[in-house]
């Protein structure tokens, strides 16, 4: 039976590859047009009403979740997957504590943006500020990004000298430490009580908010998908540069890379910091949208889920990890029947993927970039010295 499934899987991947080939063979303007159409579709998704596709909506089943809300979660997870993919897929560093950065981003906006937070209250007392004062949302975004980045560097500096399993263990510990600190430092984080009244783009949650409210989630999704698109663009730029090549080289043979002039520590630290910043920003979006966070939301399970998104989707390939993230966020919402067995289903899916396709559902096909003219040029060159 496994053989039959392998056979099926192989034909599926071949089909994927031929689609990819055809895609690459299209003229550039057609590709850009298709890409624009896809982006438009992404923005249209929360309004989805095309007959024949409405069954995709999670509110098409009784008691289903808010459709835009699910889309928002998907977008945040995709952001996480893209960030984690830089660390695991590109630089080859197994980070099991990614939730830590997500939590740091979330707590950054909570601690500095909410009137509820002890930190803000401290500032109010010290500097005689009005009780409604808090750091504005946009500045919180910046703080979240920088805090996550710095924590990535602080964690990476001593640990990136470790290799493989050791790094995984240390990062796993890091994720737990952040959660436990958040629970125990009640004077700063209000511990298990959590922090409410986390602001959105229009300030603290209130019924006056016109766009980013708690009822209509669509604007939140549009905000998140915009961030995702920007980050995809940024990570693509890195992938196709000297930096991306250095990451790949380190992943494949660190010692050989060093002898070829790549400083592994520097590029590993960059990967870690960029991944951390993306994870932190995802956490920031998550906290702003729900307006309330507490430490239980950042447990190890979620960290493992993040790694699962990358591994199932296809480590190293941005399309792959995004699909992995969407699948793992969307399927339990749409198919409520399996929601109770969610972890069992994940477990089974993971085992199946590992047996059939250890590279992930949409594996990264390391293909030379568009160098057709160069290949033609090469044919004229003599084959032998």
């Amino acid at each position, binding site marked *: 039976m496994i053989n039959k499934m392998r056979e099926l899987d192989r034909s599926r991947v071949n089909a994927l590859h031929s689609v990819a080939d055809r895609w690459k063979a299209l003229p550039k303007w057609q590709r850009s047009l298709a890409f624009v159409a896809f982006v438009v579709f992404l923005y249209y998704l929360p309004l989805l009403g095309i007959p024949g596709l409405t069954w995709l909506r999670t509110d098409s089943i009784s008691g289903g979740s808010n459709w835009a809300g699910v889309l928002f979660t998907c977008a945040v997870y995709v952001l996480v997957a893209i960030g984690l993919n830089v660390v695991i897929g590109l630089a080859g560093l197994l980070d099991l504590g990614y939730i830590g950065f997500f939590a740091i981003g979330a707590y950054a906006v909570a601690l500095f943006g909410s009137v509820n937070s002890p930190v803000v209250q401290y500032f109010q007392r010290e500097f005689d500020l009005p009780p409604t004062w808090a750091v504005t949302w946009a500045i919180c975004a910046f703080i979240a990004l920088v805090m996550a980045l710095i924590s990535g560097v602080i964690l990476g500096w001593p640990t990136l000298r470790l290799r493989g399993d050791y790094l995984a263990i240390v990062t796993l510990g890091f994720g737990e430490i952040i959660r436990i600190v958040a629970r125990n430092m009640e004077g700063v984080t209000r511990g298990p009580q959590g922090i409410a009244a986390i602001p959105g783009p229009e300030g603290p949650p209130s019924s006056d908010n016109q766009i980013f409210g708690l009822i209509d989630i669509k604007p939140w999704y549009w905000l998140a998908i915009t961030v995702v698109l920007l980050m995809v663009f*940024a990570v693509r*730029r*890195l992938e196709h*540069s*000297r*930096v*991306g*090549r*250095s990451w*790949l*080289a380190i992943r*494949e*043979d660190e*010692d*050989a*890379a*060093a*002898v*070829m*002039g*790549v*400083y*592994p520590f*520097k590029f590993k630290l*960059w990967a870690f910091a*960029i991944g951390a910043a993306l994870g932190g920003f995802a956490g920031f979006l998550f906290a702003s949208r729900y307006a309330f966070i507490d430490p239980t939301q950042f447990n190890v399970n979620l960290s493992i889920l993040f790694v699962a998104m990358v591994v199932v989707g296809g480590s190293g390939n941005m399309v792959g990890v995004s699909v992995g993230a969407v699948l793992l966020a969307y399927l339990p919402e749409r198919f409520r029947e399996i929601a109770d067995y969610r972890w069992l289903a994940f477990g089974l899916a993971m085992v199946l993927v590992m047996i059939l396709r250890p590279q992930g559902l949409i594996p990264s096909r*390391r*293909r*030379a970039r568009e*160098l057709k003219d*160069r*290949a033609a*040029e*090469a*044919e004229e*060159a*003599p*084959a*032998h*010295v």
Partner: protein
Amino acid sequence: MSDETNTPAAAPKIPAQPGPAKTLLEVDNVTLRFGGVVALNEVKFEIKEGEILGLIGPNGAGKTTCFNVMTGVYKPTSGSVRFRGERVTGRKPHQISRLGISRTFQNIRLFPEMSALENVMVGTDSRHKTSVPGALFRLRRVRPKPEELPEVTASGGLVRTWQQVRRSFAKTFGLSRHILEERAAEDKAMELLRFVGIADRANDAARNLPYGYQRRLEIARALGTEPKLLCLDEPAAGFNPAEKEDLLGLIRRIRDMGVTVLLIEHDMRLVMGVTDRIVVLEFGSKIADGLPEAVSRDPRVIAAYLGEPADAA
């Protein structure tokens, strides 16, 4: 040349090559111990600029270890390595690579999933500067040379206008350093693939290349770092005589490019055919150092390594 006095007494006294060849690399009394094992014992030799130096010796004599000390993979227990007068010992491998020492590996160590071209580009990257901010924001502008400006190819219409706008934009504001470096890296890498004769498979993943191509790709990648000194660790292992003959020509052409070559090789026919001078190691110590003909007749070398005089083999 003045250091020749320090060779062990039994080694033949070979007159140094005529001409004022400068010393490129100096291995100065390097000792390396792993636990109780002495891998290198007070090894001392130098490499002159522009020569092809052979490094031979029985298996386990310390030849590859010597490479590892020179390229910063191992740190010697005592002694030092100097490259163009600068102390190399204690520097990290990537720093040494930037100073101008590059190498290939005995058991091929390419980046298997990357294409041949990308493998070489990792090498050429070491001469470039773009890092994360440069690749992300591309703010660093460089004034391009005329041939580097975007071309206007369309004959008319909107496309042509767009291309003209791009060209004049690049003229006024320059191009990002990232883009220029990418192009330079690609061109250089392609040139090197052509130089070693494997350009026809530039886009294939290194792991899918035939064995002989992989060996050549290692050389191209090492040349990508623009070395002054190239260390080749058994580049002809597993080659048949015809392939070895090709390699011999390649090594000579590398030297003619102005790169000094240090060669570890067991095939004496190849070593005798291409090297200007030979250093022989045994049990981590230097036992001979001199011109190929003299070394191949040295009784100690014959006893330790050749088994019979090389020209009879």
